[in-house]
């Protein structure tokens, strides 16, 4: 036995070193956290800086005459073949009467979006009374005008290096001066499907595609996942087979998502002959992808239910089923829902498997059902990021912001659900 004096000396001799180690560890941790937060801040600042402008869009105010000669040459309004673009162009030319010559006029026309003509048509379709009247209307400007307005195209550089000519820049300045060119909230971004024209492209198609897909996923993956977890945890005998199943489920959770896409292509499209590019197939594939996540989370939630509750119920004469459905499930449900929502947000952000089943196509129409061709939010981001037009850059960022907002909402829901339903025992 050492006497207590030497023990004290030894402890004190080493104390400084121990404390220093602790300090170093703490500082390292703080540094790591700071670096992480910094990266996140840079990412968000960049994203918002680039994407926020997409929520505003440049519009041009024109006095459009709904000329009966053009719209109803035979006395009847022709919504299909009438020259709506011509009406808008005429209105724009009235602003610049000095412009003459074919090429100059074409330059002028290029400042308009092709959406302007569609807008006139839709207005007339909604209200045939407009025929013969002149109305002051805000119509979308072309994306190049929009880019100049937002400062994304610099008019001071050499004319050959930018898609906007000197003449167009001049007209833009003139329209701006007369208050006929202004930025307004970009409704089209939320109400339109995809388009080749950036100023008309919207995410509604992708949003609805993702929505239908997640419906399929949650309807399939949640009940199957929870049922599998309950069976494996409560009823399955523990033998070599159940061990094998457990290992495989854990492995499935780690399988790269594109492999699931390939499986979906082979099984659902080639073999089961389901439609290509459909949210139904996307949802099926994403169900496969999220099932292991849900099963693992649900099993953990079931395991966390204290055995004393089971014993209490069994001791009262509850059957195994009653124990599960009266006691285990209610207590495990918050954890199961959290797992499901986290699985769903993973599914929402997934793009690779969707590429394999044809959901990467350029689809203008907003899907109206589970078997309509559709794309999904992350795929839309991929498609826009791939587009050459300058104006798609900001839309890509805007779509990312929207996707992240949805993910945030879903994860918040998971947290709130857990807090709300969590019961103490």
């Amino acid at each position, binding site marked *: 036995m050492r006497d207590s004096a030497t023990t004290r000396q030894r402890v004190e001799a080493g104390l400084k070193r121990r404390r220093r180690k602790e300090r170093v560890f703490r500082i390292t941790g703080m540094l790591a956290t700071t670096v992480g937060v910094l990266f996140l801040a840079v990412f968000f600042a960049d994203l918002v800086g680039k994407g926020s402008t997409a929520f505003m869009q440049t519009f041009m105010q024109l006095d459009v005459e709904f000329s009966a000669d053009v719209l109803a040459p035979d006395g009847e309004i022709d919504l299909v073949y009438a020259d709506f673009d011509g009406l808008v162009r005429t209105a724009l030319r009235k602003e610049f009467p000095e412009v003459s010559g074919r090429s100059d006029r074409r330059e002028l026309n290029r400042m308009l979006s092709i959406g302007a003509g569609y807008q006139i048509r839709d207005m007339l379709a909604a209200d045939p009374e407009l025929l013969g009247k002149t109305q002051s209307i805000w119509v979308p400007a072309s994306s190049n005008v929009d880019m100049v307005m937002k400062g994304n195209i610099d008019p001071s550089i050499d004319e050959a290096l930018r898609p906007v000519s000197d003449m167009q820049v001049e007209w833009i300045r003139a329209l701006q001066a007369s208050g006929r060119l202004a930025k307004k909230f970009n409704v089209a971004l939320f109400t339109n499907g995809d388009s080749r024209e950036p100023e008309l492209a919207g995410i509604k198609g992708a949003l609805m595609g993702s929505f239908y897909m997640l419906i399929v996923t949650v309807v399939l993956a949640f009940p199957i996942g929870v049922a599998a977890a309950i069976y494996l945890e409560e009823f399955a005998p*523990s033998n070599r087979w159940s061990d094998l199943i457990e290992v495989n489920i854990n492995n499935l959770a780690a399988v790269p998502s594109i492999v699931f896409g390939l499986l979906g292509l082979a099984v659902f499209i080639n073999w089961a002959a389901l439609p290509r590019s459909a949210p139904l197939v996307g949802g099926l594939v994403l169900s496969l992808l999220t099932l292991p996540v849900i099963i693992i989370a649900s099993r953990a939630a079931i395991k966390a239910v204290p055995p004393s509750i089971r*014993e209490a119920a069994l*001791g009262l*004469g509850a059957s195994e089923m009653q124990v599960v459905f009266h006691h285990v499930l209610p207590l495990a449900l918050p954890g199961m829902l959290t797992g499901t929502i986290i699985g769903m947000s993973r599914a929402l952000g997934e793009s690779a498997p969707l590429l394999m089943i044809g959901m990467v196509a350029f689809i203008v129409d907003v899907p109206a059902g589970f078997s309509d061709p559709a794309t999904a939010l992350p795929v839309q981001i991929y498609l826009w990021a791939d587009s050459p037009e300058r104006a798609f850059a900001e839309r890509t960022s805007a779509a990312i912001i929207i996707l992240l907002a949805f993910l945030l909402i879903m994860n918040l829901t998971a947290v709130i659900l857990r807090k709300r339903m969590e019961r103490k025992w």
Partner: protein
Amino acid sequence: MRMANMMDVDPREDQPPGLHDTGAAAERPVERATSAADTNNVVEQLTDLGETVGEVRCENPFIVAENIDVFYGDNHAIKDVTLEIAKSDVIALIGPSGCGKSTFLRCLNRMNDSIETARVTGRISMDGQDIYGKNLDPVALRARVGMVFQKPNPFPKSIYDNVAYGPRIHGLAADRAELDTIVHTSLERAGLLKEVKDRLDEPGTGLSGGQQQRLCIARTIAVNPEVILMDEPCSALDPIATARIEDLIDELSSDYAIVIVTHSMQQAARVSRRVAYFHLGLLVEVDETNRIFTNPQHRLTEDYITGRIG
């Protein structure tokens, strides 16, 4: 020293399990070694004989356990135990940790069924019916044999729902009014009604430890069982709560056969009519409580109740 210690303490006070071990080891390591060797000898003899000292039979037996062996995998947890329990009995199962008393208790309502590796051989009959028989559903058995656990385990539901759960799943109440009556009488009999009658909607988990345990007893008697098994029902409670539970056991003993596992010999002495002493899976001695504590027949029983082993 140990004896004096035991007598000095408040008779209400539970001795935490495990105190014996550390105490004996620290105080008399040499003597203990001898006694442990002795004990092993005696156990060997006992295994050879396979005989339980005292009186395993009783008049009008309600539960008859014959030659019970329990295995957990390769572990032989209970060895050839025979014991009869009468309807009017309060029998305490005592013995050192790991001696098989809880295992035996769990055989009586087939709670061992839920342990996959557990295997029970022998015959246990209740009211003449083999409870391990093919045509007996453990669910029906557990409605007749209630159980109170070591740690109070109310459901995370309201006090009312806790008590009403058993009657509900077994369909014992025809309507809401009858269920109300069952809940009230059960709480009353468990001595809890006065404290909780204004807050039946509040969660049962919000009660104090002693109240929770009485709630668990109320929940058990709401099914109106014939036997109540108690697995160290007071080991997680303070002395006052323990005293209340013991009083309650006394009251309940007029209507139910009670089998109680306890680590506290004082408790066994206070509440039980008969005592069964288990050691390493063997039932060493069974007798009336008085006789066990004043005049134990077996050397092991004597060593245990005087605190020499534990």
